[in-house]
């Protein structure tokens, strides 16, 4: 009955947490033999090439339908311009893009691709190299997205600190309060009304500026 135990064991909730989710790849490559060798190279990995891009259908529609986690594209494909428009004209969520090229000097070009992060250029995609390349691309993309979120959080925090400072100074000037009292008054209003401190500051500024 040992095999049953081990089966049971792998299905335990603790283990399930470690199961790596499958990542869907949209591959845009007109070279069919190369596409097929890539697909088989990624067998038994967390990457699944669900779809080989179909030339007769717009790439946007395919991105919509497949919702890929990664897009892998030949840098010489005319569809490159569609990817370029995903975030500008069409406002799609950013996705990691791996571009490959058999001919071009990719080391040089890589330094110039947008931030070198959301898109990543590699040499010709050889079957034995493809998995580590995808690993790196996904990791870099996630790191970049994390940084982007952190940056916008920091900006947000700075903006609200400015608002609070401004409101505090207005209160001190117009109501003749000490800095400490002005801040306490604002904090009390925030707690009493269940608002955020920077929202209270905003209301105060517009109110104090009109009287």
């Amino acid at each position, binding site marked *: 009955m040992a095999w049953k135990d081990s089966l049971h064991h792998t299905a335990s909730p603790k283990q399930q947490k470690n199961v790596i989710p499958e990542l869907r790849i949209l591959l845009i490559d007109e070279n069919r033999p190369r596409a097929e060798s890539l697909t088989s190279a990624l067998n038994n990995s967390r990457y699944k090439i669900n779809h080989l891009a179909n030339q*007769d259908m717009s790439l946007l529609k395919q991105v919509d339908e497949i919702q890929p986690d990664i897009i892998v594209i030949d840098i010489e494909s005319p569809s490159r311009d569609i990817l370029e428009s995903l975030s*500008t004209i069409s406002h799609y969520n950013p996705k990691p893009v791996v571009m490959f090229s058999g001919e071009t000097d990719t080391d040089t070009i890589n330094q110039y691709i*947008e931030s070198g992060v959301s898109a990543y250029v590699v040499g010709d995609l050889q079957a034995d190299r493809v998995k580590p390349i995808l690993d790196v691309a996904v990791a870099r993309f996630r790191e970049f997205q994390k940084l982007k979120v952190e940056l916008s959080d920091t900006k947000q925090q700075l903006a609200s600190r400015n608002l609070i400072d401004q409101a505090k100074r207005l209160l001190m000037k117009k109501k003749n309060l000490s800095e400490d009292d002005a801040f306490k008054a604002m904090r009390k209003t925030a707690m009493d009304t269940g608002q955020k401190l920077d929202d209270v500051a905003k209301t105060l500024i517009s109110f104090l500026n009109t009287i």
Partner: protein
Amino acid sequence: MIEPEQTDLILGFIPLTDSAPLIVAKEMGFFSQWGLNVKLQKQNSWATLRDKLHAGLLDATQMLAPMPLASSLGLGCAKVQVITPLVLSLNGNAITLSEKLHQEILHENNLAHVTLPLAAYLLQKVISVRKIRNRPKLRFATVFPYSCHYYQLRDWLASANISEEDLDIVVVPPVNMVAFLQSGEIDGCCVGGPWNAKAVRAGIGLTALTSFDIWQDSPEKVLGLLASFQQAKPNTVIALSAALKQACIWLESIPNRFEAARLLSSDQYLDASVDVIAPSLIGSCLTHISMPPRAIPSYNQFSKSTKNAASDGSNSSSNNSSINVPEYIRGEWLISQMKNAGQLKDIDVPADLVRTVFRPDIYHQMRLKLEDQAVQFFRRSG
């Protein structure tokens, strides 16, 4: 004569009718006259063409007029200072509708036939009927986010108060345009030649209007190169601009235009028939398989604006009002278009941006060299 610091150059181009100046300069020997050995490298997408220029894999390239500005601002790419010393062409785009949309316009507006250039308000009925019947929105294609095609399409739609919420605008590579119009994947597109003529010849589209009907005489393609390249090799840039300027002048004559169409049609360039390349070059806009072409003398402009071409038949290169000058006002106009399209949100645009990208100073140095050369030529032959 000027001595270029670098003689072997690789230039990028996208196979379009208005890549004529590059192909003519190569085929008619203008590059060699200026001591340059140029290799033209066909590119498949604007984004990859741009990245190769940034990385120095291309020494210079044909670019969409807004692209040097976008590169210098770091829009959609790492920030790299790109300059343009020469405007290569004006106009050249058109909006083509699928036959299905053409029929829908006739039907919803109770018309027997459309009048060209087509007024955008005829789309209003189609859009509202589709909305009421819960049918998909119209979908129009353009070629690149930072392109005059996109801004022209927006302007045309805005002329009838049609906003981007009323329809979808997507990017489709020109090579797929005709097939997508036919399959119904898109209902219309704003694209350059020879793609509009191809759709009309194949009987699958109506060319509703040209970009000349929307914006008269605006820069379409420019010569783009890195500011660092120009600093290191100023003479090379002057020689390159001079050869291309000569090609633009050569392209002013209509008989030459037909010869240009033949050059362009070869496999290594557009790989398309003269049937679809020649019309726009000789000022004809094919409209529909069952309708006559429209005369649009400025459909493709390479050297002089229509006004000058009409009053002055000579090929004088000293013409200051030449369309090839990258004037600041042109750059400012493009910036305003980018702004209107919402592409400059959260972007700091330096006050001197246009002055660092559009470089009439280099153009004027080149013009003096070109004049010198012409004088010497006449002395020798006289």
